[in-house]
């Protein structure tokens, strides 16, 4: 009885570890597959690179100013947009529904504002290029010299 139990136990441990490995391989491959988009900002913003923490804080609508003290204005695509989903998951490491519930909490408790919604990648480009302090994201193929690519360190 005991040996059977032990062998079952060690089998389940092995199975568990295999699952973990598979999972990490999957996560790793997701991270590698992402470099088709960039975080973009209004060219007047002085920054060239920011930290991952800072990026998350900006899209959580908590960090409200650039290091030089000017306003940050966040632009996003609709919750079910493919690029929005990819940026949320791969760059911000959260699911779109989590971003939405964070923004709702801020807006309806009066402790923050929601990001500004744009309806297309084209509109994203126009808005980020023309709004002081703007930050957004774009497919690489859509990026031109009217916006600056922000490096995430």
């Amino acid at each position, binding site marked *: 009885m005991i040996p059977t139990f032990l062998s079952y136990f060690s089998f389940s441990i092995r199975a568990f570890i295999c699952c973990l490995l598979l999972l990490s391989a999957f996560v790793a491959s997701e991270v590698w597959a992402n470099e088709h988009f960039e975080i973009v900002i209004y060219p007047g913003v002085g920054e060239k690179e920011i930290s991952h923490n800072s990026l*998350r804080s900006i899209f959580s609508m908590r960090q409200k100013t650039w290091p030089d003290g000017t306003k940050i204005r966040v632009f996003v695509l609709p919750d079910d947009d493919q690029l929005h989903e990819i940026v949320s998951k791969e760059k911000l490491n959260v699911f779109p529904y989590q971003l939405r519930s964070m923004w709702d909490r801020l*807006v309806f408790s009066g402790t923050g504002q929601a990001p500004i919604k744009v309806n297309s990648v084209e509109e994203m480009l126009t808005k980020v290029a023309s709004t002081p302090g703007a930050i957004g994201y774009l497919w690489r193929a859509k990026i031109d010299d009217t916006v600056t690519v922000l490096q995430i360190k």
Partner: protein
Amino acid sequence: MLVFVLLSGELTAQAQIIDPSLKSIEPSQRAVVLLPAGELPAQALESNAATATQKPNLFNRTTNWLRSRNLPGDLQIHGFASQGYITTSDNDVFGNSNNGGSFGLTEAGLNVSVRPLPKLQLSAQVLSRRAGKGNDGMPRLDYAILDYQLYSHEANQYGIRIGRLKNPFGFYNETRDVAHTRPSILLPQSIYFDRTRNLGLSGDSIQLYGETAIGSIGTFSTQLGVFWPIVNDKDTEVSLIASRFSPQPLGGLNRDASFIGRGIFETNDKRLRLGISGIWLNTSYDPHGITDPVRSGSLQFTPIYFSAQYNAEKWSITSEYAIRHFKYDSTFSSNMLINGKDFFGESYYVQGEYRFTPKWEGFIRYDALYTDRSDRNGKEFQEELLTKYNLPIAAHSRFAKDITVGLRWNVTPEFMLRAEYHRVNGTGWLSRLDNPSTEGPMSQHWDLYAIQASYRF
């Protein structure tokens, strides 16, 4: 349903009233600075499409920059409206629900926020809530906040908020009236009492807040404040100053300085969220002249809440636990049931949510409330009242155990329909105003069915 349609129509009309005043502003600016494009009526979207094809040059950029300086800073307008239909097998919830059902739960709100300076935000919300005898739908100021960020460096932010603030406790209190932010039509009543909601909802307050990055693991957010609670409503007075001499206390409760604090740790991926909140609420009773059978005295309510949540892509598990300490002075008169009472209440819920698709979600929850944790079945209290005051009361008014299942359909990102079923054992959290003893005794085992339509923008 009809009421809801009327309400949402009203809100849309309001949004359009706002629009003509913006006509003088150049279309591209209108959407950029004033409102997210998706929140404007169709004509604004058309003009956005027109500017999208126009390549911005230095001139455009400069004029845009100048204009954005002259306009009110980043004005945003948001709102919501919900209509519920509730029917119960026995007992009343938000109206006469056990007699053919009731449309007694209507919630609507409209808020405005501006950022006149990069670190300064002003915001205010007006709320109307019609729910049973305790809330008649009169619009009232829900919050009005001045928020100044004192220090900001990367993911670390510290600041101060002054005004009428929503009380930060648990995961849901601050946005409890916005259906889209709730997991269900009725929040778990053991933690988020609707009976004494105004007591915990908001107060005139000064608060310090901070968000600190903890390496690359996560963030720790804290809010600490002093507030003057809103205690002068009927439901709260009846709940706190239970009197057997009159259906409502004759005197009133005072707004004494109280304290509140909450800390929430979140991993960077927001999968794990752990919170602890505490309130130290002070209030006192002023009798109505010398004939008032209730004499003056003060009471403290000091609950502590522990909250935990785990979020995966398809599912979330949430649990909150509260231990609630009530302490009444022994000066209320020896005839009073509450006189000198000192006891701990206990409540908790465990909830699982599953997102079948982004449009369809389901949840299941077990929610338990014990008014006095040392007397979980209410028998001792029943005995005490009978022997001391010859007053027969139901033991089940001292607890409530609620099993709930529900379904949510996000028809569009703005519009949602949901339905839920509660099987409840106990009457511990039912409103005494909606279920007065003159209408006969309450039933221990009862069912509640609810549907709700909700719109937000």
